[in-house]
């Protein structure tokens, strides 16, 4: 198991995909945070809630890119054929999926922490530059960083599960992004009392922040964490079943 985990971590470090994801994430987070702190009226940026919405954007992007990292870790191998040597080296497919989940939990946490750190750093600097007092407490900032890392890690695990289930690289990536950016946002907008239980909102609950107007609907972090773990377990379970059954031609 540790051998396979080492191999998966090494694969992540030695492919351009990872670097590309990190770069894209950095650019997007920086651009969106900049846009918000520069363009939003002072009114919307004063107060703890308003600022948390903006600072929490790092978690949203951490979850998106974490999920992509997870999905690509398996769908890319299926696409380029690397899955064959991988399975010849380790024919126990469950162990391969488990190693990918663990490697993506680690890498996803790093992505989430990095993303939220950029958001917090740039966001706070931007607010200070506009002379707006920073309202969230030290505890809020700590939760943003730790929760953001945990949310991205768990979404990376979900990504592995979805990737293993759908197997198609583009299909899995689009499904995850569409889910997080459109489906969840729509449900949360229409029915926040239901939407808050969805996996993206549960991840936001870990960080204590969410972009939507309905941030007040966020679950408490412990409930969000439990739900996230359950969602990840479901996705991984589906991925394990699919991977065990399918032929690799």
């Amino acid at each position, binding site marked *: 198991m540790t051998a396979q985990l080492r191999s998966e971590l090494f694969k992540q470090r030695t492919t*351009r995909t990872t670097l590309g994801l990190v770069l894209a994430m950095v650019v997007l987070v920086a651009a969106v945070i900049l846009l918000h702190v520069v363009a939003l009226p002072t009114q919307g940026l004063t107060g703890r809630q308003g600022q948390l919405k903006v600072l929490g954007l790092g978690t949203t992007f951490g979850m998106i890119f974490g999920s992509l990292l997870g999905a690509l870790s398996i769908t890319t191998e299926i696409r380029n*054929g*690397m899955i*064959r*040597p991988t*399975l010849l080296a*380790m*024919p126990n497919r469950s162990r391969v999926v488990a190693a990918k989940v663990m490697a993506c939990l680690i890498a996803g946490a790093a992505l989430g922490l990095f993303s939220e750190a950029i958001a917090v750093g740039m966001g706070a600097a931007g607010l200070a530059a506009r002379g707006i007092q920073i309202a969230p407490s030290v505890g809020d900032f700590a939760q943003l960083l730790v929760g953001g890392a945990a949310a991205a890690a768990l979404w990376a695990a979900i990504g592995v599960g979805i990737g293993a289930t759908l197997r198609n690289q583009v299909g899995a990536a689009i499904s995850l992004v569409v889910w997080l950016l459109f489906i969840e946002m729509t449900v949360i907008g229409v029915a926040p009392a239901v939407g808050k239980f969805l996996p993206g909102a549960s991840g936001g609950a870990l960080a204590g922040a969410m972009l939507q107007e309905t941030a007040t609907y966020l679950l408490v972090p412990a409930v969000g964490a439990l739900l996230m773990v359950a969602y990840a377990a479901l996705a991984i379970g589906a991925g394990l079943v699919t991977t065990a059954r399918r032929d*690799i*031609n």
Partner: protein
Amino acid sequence: MTFDLEPGTITGFLGPNGAGKSTTLRLLLGLVRPTSGDALVFGRRYAGLDQPARRVGAVLEASDFDPGRSGRNHLRALALAIDIDFGRVEEVLDIVDLGDAAHRRVKTYSLGMRQRLGLAGALLGDPELLLLDEPANGLDPEGVHWLRGLLRQFAKQGRTVLISSHVLAEVAQVVDAVLIIDRGRLVASREMTELTGGDRSLEDLYLELTAKERV
């Protein structure tokens, strides 16, 4: 279908396109699941072997790599998975003569270089049995000559090679025995010494066995 491979020999696995050569190899390696029955190698399912990559090495497709990873890192990723040290990676790179290109991304490799990298991956675990699916595809005459030498040397060490092909001439010069399959069935198993007259009679046998049933 059951066949024995003699240690120290190279066996050709022949049959028309679609005869089931690739599927047989994938069944043996546990990548494809049989609808009924079991596929065994060394008397066990591949996944049931203790450290299978140290017993069986296989190349199924010409380019099963992440194109963005270097040749060396591709092999290192596999070495980590089968718990073999990076020194062995350099050894197999030398064996397949890719040492100078190992730092380059696989994307920049020619088809022949990719074939050799695949072979290096199969040799990583220092296996007793090598299963190669159409390994000469895309190799130029020099590459085919090189591959032949490598396989002979491998067999000379008392190890076993099974090499599938639909091109008889490619195989006839290097194999000690042939298995011929057609429509998923083993239709002949011969030592090359039984086929007096060399290539000619292998071709006759092949055509006779694979053509008859298709009409």
